């Protein structure tokens, strides 16, 4: 009997704490978003974060996209050759890259790179009282630290995804032409025929949401970290893990919403 009660109590406590964290996160997100719209604006912080998130993520995202596009071309060739449907490869590559691989892979890369760095930086500021120091210097930390980062994420990620889309297709093109012996003009024509504005747009919508999720998690876990170096470490881990999971979950939801018929 005691064991049953204990189990019920534990489940209840876990549920309550989950609801409490979700509520805290939602309030944090709303506060961060509302500060994006209200002055003062910290352009300098925005530009620095934007460069860090967007520009300096370019090499990682570019390489990821190139190889993924290439591998899709290679894999689909092996599959489709059995049915003599090789000509569909260009279409498959462009669809996979613009709808899924571009946003998801760029998102995961940025989560690992930028989300982690944000959590570590803001977490260190928290445990060394720098966030309190901001408040004593007439600066709202949500406005100064969080709002510019959220905005930078939401703008930088779609741009990165556009680059990833182009390079993913280029990766597929390279493999198809160099290794599989496709004619370059035929491949490009097939690509242009199968690229859809809707696919690219939904990919960019995803990217905006992912950019928000990644920076939100980095800021939230960093902002609420406590307990010195260890606390900052676990904040960093949580930021990356939770952002990655949410990213994949929302990717599914959006795909279901737009493409499920």
């Amino acid at each position, binding site marked *: 009997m005691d064991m049953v009660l204990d189990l019920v109590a534990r489940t209840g406590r876990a549920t309550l704490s989950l609801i409490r964290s979700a509520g805290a996160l939602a309030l944090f997100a709303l506060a961060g978003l509302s500060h994006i719209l209200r002055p003062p604006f910290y352009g300098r912080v925005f530009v620095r974060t934007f460069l860090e998130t967007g520009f300096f993520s370019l090499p990682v995202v570019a390489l990821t996209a190139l190889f993924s596009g290439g591998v899709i071309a290679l894999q689909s060739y092996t599959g489709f050759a059995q049915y003599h449907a090789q000509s569909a490869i260009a279409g498959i590559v462009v669809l996979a890259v613009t709808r899924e691989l571009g946003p998801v892979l760029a998102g995961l890369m940025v989560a690992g790179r930028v989300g982690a760095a944000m959590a570590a930086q803001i977490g260190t500021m928290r445990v*060394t009282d720098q966030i*309190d120091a901001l408040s004593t*210097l*007439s600066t709202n930390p949500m406005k100064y630290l969080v709002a510019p980062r959220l905005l930078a994420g939401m703008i930088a990620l779609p741009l990165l995804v556009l680059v990833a889309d182009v390079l993913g297709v280029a990766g597929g093109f390279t493999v198809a032409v160099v290794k599989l012996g496709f004619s370059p003009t035929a491949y490009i024509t097939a690509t242009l025929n199968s690229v859809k504005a809707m696919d690219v747009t939904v990919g960019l919508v995803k990217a905006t949401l992912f950019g928000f999720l990644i920076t939100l998690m980095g800021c939230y876990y960093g902002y609420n970290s406590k307990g010195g170096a260890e606390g900052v470490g676990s904040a960093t881990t949580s930021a990356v893990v939770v952002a990655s999971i949410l990213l994949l979950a929302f990717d599914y939801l959006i795909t279901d919403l737009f493409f499920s018929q």
Partner: protein
Amino acid sequence: MDQSMTSAPPKIRIRDLHKSFGDKKVLDGISLDVPPGTSFVIIGGSGSGKSVLLRCILGLMTPDSGSIEIDGEDVLAAPAKRRDQLRSEIGMLFQNGALFDSLPVWENVTFGLLALNKLARTDARDKAGAILEQVGLAPSVGDLFPSELSGGMQKRVGLARAIAAQPDILFFDEPTTGLDPIMGAVIDGLIVDCVKKLGSTAIAITHDMASAQRIGDEAAMLYRGKLVWQGAAASLMQSGNDYVDQFTHGRRQGPITMELRR
């Protein structure tokens, strides 16, 4: 309420302040008057509630009950905007400096002035040099980053940042912790100079007795969230109070018991 109030209204007036974390009472009914222009030192062991008291006055924490008045204005009842305004009149030197490590020293020093738009960005570098000189640093230090500074220099930069906006009230959180005794004395000297020059009211929390006597005009001792003694800082070493005596002389026996596990 009490007679001392009739002379000059206190700069900071605290009444019956309570704050708990879970079932641990950190502040247990603190009442305190700090007259204008006084340097007030609060001593007490680790975990006695000193930092929490400062954080409550600064607005970084909200007390559970009680009132905090600055110049007769109830800070806790004031609307958010006014509270921010009151807060901007307090300069704070954090225990470990809390300098922004992503910004150069000059930007750290002028951060508050820039945030309040009291200074144009183009003039900030020169202004920072002038403030740095007040705390005994060369203006060229402004181009360094906090990580390139020694502990004593970080404290000086922290002090420069705290006094930059010429605040009415200055808080010092363990200003000498982590410094050697000579550097501690130097920082104390700077603090006394700055407070005098600005005519500010100061509250310092410390467990360094030498520092407490150098900085303070008045002193009080916190123990388990309560004020157990208040008097002139000069009388700290011969207060006749059991708590203060045990603390100032570092005795193991006495009314203060160490809680190693809480």
